[in-house]
């Protein structure tokens, strides 16, 4: 990637102009987006404490290295949040999280109407997360963003891909998801 010195100068001056308003912009961004970012991460990792820690990481990155154009904030947040969440899932994979917790799901609350169904549901969740952790990051991100409800245009913006490719990439990602799901599912 080659840039001319003019680009650097322009970028630096924009940042300096924004300096005084930068903190205000950040505060507003934080207040407006904290909840839904937590939501995305909670959906992804399933643990409220972990989701909050990961959300802090996302906003730390926003604070340190904001996107050049604040108009793209939502896209940026979607991308970084799914990234951070997937990294966490992958770290679990490395720490053999699943081997350790397999078969050890116990329910703290005894008030479930159908405890067996709840256990099964949680095992399924664990499997899905494991599949996501095993997929290539880009493909996993695509799936997550789509199933969070983003349109093709929004997905394209978040991941910096051509809108026309979303369909093809999604189809491929879903195929991969199924293949991995079958492979990782516990044998009967």
């Amino acid at each position, binding site marked *: 990637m080659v840039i001319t*010195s003019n680009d*650097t100068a322009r970028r630096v001056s924009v940042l300096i102009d924004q300096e005084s308003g930068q903190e205000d912009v950040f505060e507003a961004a934080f207040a407006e987006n904290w909840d839904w970012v937590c939501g995305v991460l909670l959906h992804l990792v399933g643990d409220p404490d972990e989701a909050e820690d990961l959300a802090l990481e996302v906003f*730390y990155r926003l604070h*340190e290295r904001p996107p050049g154009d604040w108009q793209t904030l939502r896209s940026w947040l979607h991308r970084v949040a799914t990234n951070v969440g997937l990294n966490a899932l992958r770290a679990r994979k490395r720490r053999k999280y699943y081997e350790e917790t397999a078969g050890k799901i116990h329910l703290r609350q005894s008030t479930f109407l159908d405890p067996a169904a709840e256990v099964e549901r949680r095992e399924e969740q664990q499997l899905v997360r494991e599949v996501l952790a095993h997929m290539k990051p880009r493909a996993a991100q695509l799936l997550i963003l789509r*199933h969070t409800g983003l*349109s*093709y245009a929004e997905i394209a913006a978040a991941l910096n891909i051509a809108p026309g490719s*979303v369909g093809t990439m999604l189809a491929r990602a*879903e195929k991969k998801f199924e293949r991995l799901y079958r492979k990782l599912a516990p044998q009967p």
Partner: protein
Amino acid sequence: MKHISEGILRAYFDEALSEAEQKRVIAHLATCSRCAEKAASIEARNARVRASMAGLSSPYLRAPMEAQVARERLRDYVYEKKENTMLKKAFSRRYRPAWVAVAFVLFFAVAFSFQPVRALAGDFLALFRVQKIEFVEADIEGFDDEESFREVADTLGSFVEKEVVVKSGGETQYVDDMATVRSLVDYPLRFPKIEGETHYAVEPGGSASMQVDIQKMRLLLAELGYTAFSLPESLDGADVDITFGTSVVVSYGGCPLHIEEGESVEESDDKRSCTVFMQIPSPNITAPAELDIDQLGQAYLQLLGMTPDEAATFSQRVDWTTTMVVPIPNFMHMDYREVQVNGVDGTIIIYPPSYHSDQDEYMLTWAKDDIIYSLSGVGDTATALEIAASIE
């Protein structure tokens, strides 16, 4: 008859097509059983995956903490993270020279995937002498951010720790005057003219050698996510050796130099005047003969994310025996370009302003007369080149 692609079919089920395209799809599916079948299978798969993904939500989990409370938590979080700022890492022992170590290990991980080794002890060639450094943007899946990169660096780091025998010529010597430095080093030293507190660190040379253990290599590549490289058995046991001479690191201005892991750094304005200049004699690498260097180089580039075509094009203009190609992960948002420095081609990397510095930071690198130079500090290209011009 022209059939409908999978991508379009998929988009159709997400209602992401234009009205015209939608009509075309419906019309075609009515008459083409092959596509209708494909469409049905895509729709079914979509439904299954959607169900799996939807199953991730749990109604029993508590809501996240309030934004106001979280904002306070973020302050603590930022403070803790500040202790590991980019600038500090760049100067700390562990990451200096950061990219060289990664580049070398990756390079040699690939090196032995081609050509059988001629098992004649001593029949090695001094194959590489770095005369030029070239940076290339690395676009590797999984390297999207600092976190995953750190994980890879850790994986590589522990591999190197276990597999590479490093012999050091001694302890680092910290010196404050130029005359003493010159007496400690056996090649002509050069220095820029910079005002300010000056400290020298003389790092004795040494060697790094490794005997290839094929199994461990394969495990490493697998852990890094590369499954496409097959390593022939004959490479097992090959010897690789890197020797490097004494290097000198000079700091000008207030620089946090002797930072050990875990030590905290005080934020000070002095960082603005901190400039670091390094000179490192080009390492000498010996490796088994019969290596197809060009093929190696292209494989390396592909590891960094280039397509085979891009790798071939890039490789055409690179002399692999004299050029060290260093990867820059694309998440680091660094800009770089070629510049002329000291009469040779060099590269300058600019890191944009961040929390601890409202100016660009630069790293200027070039190789001349078998010595690799690096100049880093706060400022823009013009500043960097001005300082470099004063070197003698």
